[in-house]
């Protein structure tokens, strides 16, 4: 593995609620190398978004808090970093694309303004220069008539176009890491492919690393080099993408892969799409042993007694399962 750009070490982001502590992220570790695409997969509520937002410290505190762990960005731990220093990293070094393009743009400013804002802040550009920069960015993300559209408001754009604008905002300052939090979930299927292709193009152009958060295994297979599978606030498996699809070791990963719809399912003898039975355990009082045990068909007593550690099973392939 080449030099690590971002290293998350045993991160615990917990939320204080009236019912007690919700352990949304409970001891997660992962690394991203320069220029690499890492996919983080898992179902809703498994802690992938909280992990991503923790990196940019976009968690509301309170109720959230960093209980333990480190987020090391280019040799520097971000958790104790003061807000002013954090603001110098945001957008300029680490940027984020959000899930919901309909709500992640401010309705009262033109898209040009919103792209130009970070250029003005981080590169000290004048108003005119920054708007020119915004036009450049809109051209890069392939918005037609960029010179004219730069003065339009978000409500004048369609969902896919807005997501292009969100990507333009994120890439305006040429960050080294782009965190894409389910960037295609809210979009039409045809638009999804366009947005993923655009992200690929941008990566080829700027060479930034991407942390791609998704629950769609198809997106993972096509875009990532390495995959981290999360379940109930924990990492359960980590492997290069071919290895993960070819030789999934964790029963949860196996279930995720089997739940991908296949056109040839009927001829292969599976009439119905497979599902993983049961639901994610409560993160208020997580079970003592393996968190997947109550949904796992291989679970035995040792699984329920103690938590399986993440262990190396092949080069670059780690799994948190005793089987």
């Amino acid at each position, binding site marked *: 593995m080449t030099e690590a750009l971002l290293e998350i070490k045993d991160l615990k982001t917990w939320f204080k609620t009236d019912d007690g502590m919700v352990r949304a992220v409970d001891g997660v570790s992962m690394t991203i190398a320069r220029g690499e695409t890492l996919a983080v997969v898992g179902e809703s509520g498994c802690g992938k978004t909280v992990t991503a937002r923790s990196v940019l410290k976009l968690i509301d505190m309170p109720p959230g808090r960093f209980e333990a762990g480190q987020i090391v960005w280019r040799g520097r731990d971000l958790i104790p970093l003061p*807000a002013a220093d954090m603001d110098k990293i*945001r957008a300029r070094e680490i940027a984020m694309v*959000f899930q919901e393009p309909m709500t992640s743009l401010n309705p009262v*400013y033109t898209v040009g303004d919103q792209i130009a804002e*970070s250029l003005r*802040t981080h590169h000290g550009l004048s108003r005119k220069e920054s708007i020119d920069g915004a036009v450049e960015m809109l051209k890069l993300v392939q918005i037609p008539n960029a010179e004219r559209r730069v003065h339009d*408001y978000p409500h004048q754009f369609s969902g896919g176009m807005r997501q292009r604008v969100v990507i333009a905002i994120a890439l305006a300052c040429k960050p080294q890491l782009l965190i894409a939090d389910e960037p295609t979930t809210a979009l039409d299927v045809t638009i999804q492919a366009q947005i993923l292709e655009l992200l690929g193009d941008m990566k080829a152009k700027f060479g930034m690393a991407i942390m791609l958060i998704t629950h769609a295994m198809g997106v993972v297979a096509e875009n990532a080099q390495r995959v981290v599978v999360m379940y109930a606030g924990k990492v359960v498996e980590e492997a290069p993408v071919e290895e993960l699809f070819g030789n999934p070791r964790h029963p949860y990963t196996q279930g995720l892969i089997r739940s991908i719809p296949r056109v040839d399912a009927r001829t292969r003898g599976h009439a119905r799409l497979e599902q993983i039975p049961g639901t994610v355990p409560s993160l208020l009082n997580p079970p003592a042993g393996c968190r997947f045990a109550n949904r796992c068909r291989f679970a035995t007593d040792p699984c329920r007694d103690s938590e399986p550690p993440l262990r190396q099973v092949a080069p670059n392939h780690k799994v948190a399962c005793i089987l």
Partner: protein
Amino acid sequence: MSRDYLFRRILIAIPSLLGISLVLFTVLALAPGDPFGELVTNPNVPAEIRLALRAKFGLDDPVWIRYVRWLNAMLQGDWGFSFTSRMDVDTLIMQRLPTTVAVIGAAQILAIVVAIPVGVLAATRPYSLFDQIANTLAFVGFSLPTFFTGLLLILVFSIQLDWLPFVYRTDIRASGWQWWWEHIRQSIMPVTVLGLFQGASLVRYVRSSVLDVIKLDYVTTARSKGIGEPKVVTRHVVRNALIPVVTLVALQMPVVFGGAIVTEQIFRIPGIGSLLISSILANDTPVVMGVTFVFACLVVLFNLIADILYGWLDPRITFR
């Protein structure tokens, strides 16, 4: 595009003003009380003259004829004649209006200048000590009626401490800075009473509006740009949070005028509020009609201003 919008809004204001004037006129015509009531008991006025006067002013015609006549005269700039003050209604109102507008305007500005920063600061630190204090004071502020706080201030600052005059005078014999100073001194208490009363409820609205906006996705987007929290709040939160507050301020204008009538009575401000009350007591119908119509115009005007502000604050509105 925005000129069309403005033009449309002004066109809509015309039928509403006509409707308001019709209702006002009908209600006043149905109300008991007669401007010539005093003449009936006056032994020096013979009955024929009384009847002739009534016929001359058309007081016994049907309501709708009198309304059309009033409207016609109104459009030609003739607002009628005050039976009690022996002068034209428009002159009378124009004498009083500047004082009212100055006091209400200053009070609204005070309310907004206090409420927006306090509401925003309280919302950005929810349940902090500052928030708790601001909330408590706001609650106290809008629970105390202006006639109570007004009298309290008079008692403390005029009677006990003798710092401020408690009767508002328009006939100040001074010029230049001295004149301004006297006016400011006598306006302090009425403006404070009205302004803080308005500001108190406004604080609560600003706070809840900011709390609604601060959780939205685009605020997170703004934070992720590293522009710093003060800019996130002023640029991305406050502007969006103010949109519903503008509606509120505009809708509150009738209440503000109502409150001003009471306040004008307490501080003896010779504004149109006290003119309204004295003319009602004197059965001076043309003045009552004139003043209420001016109030209606002001309310419509402030709604118009709110609509324009809306279009300015929220680009989505102008284009619809």
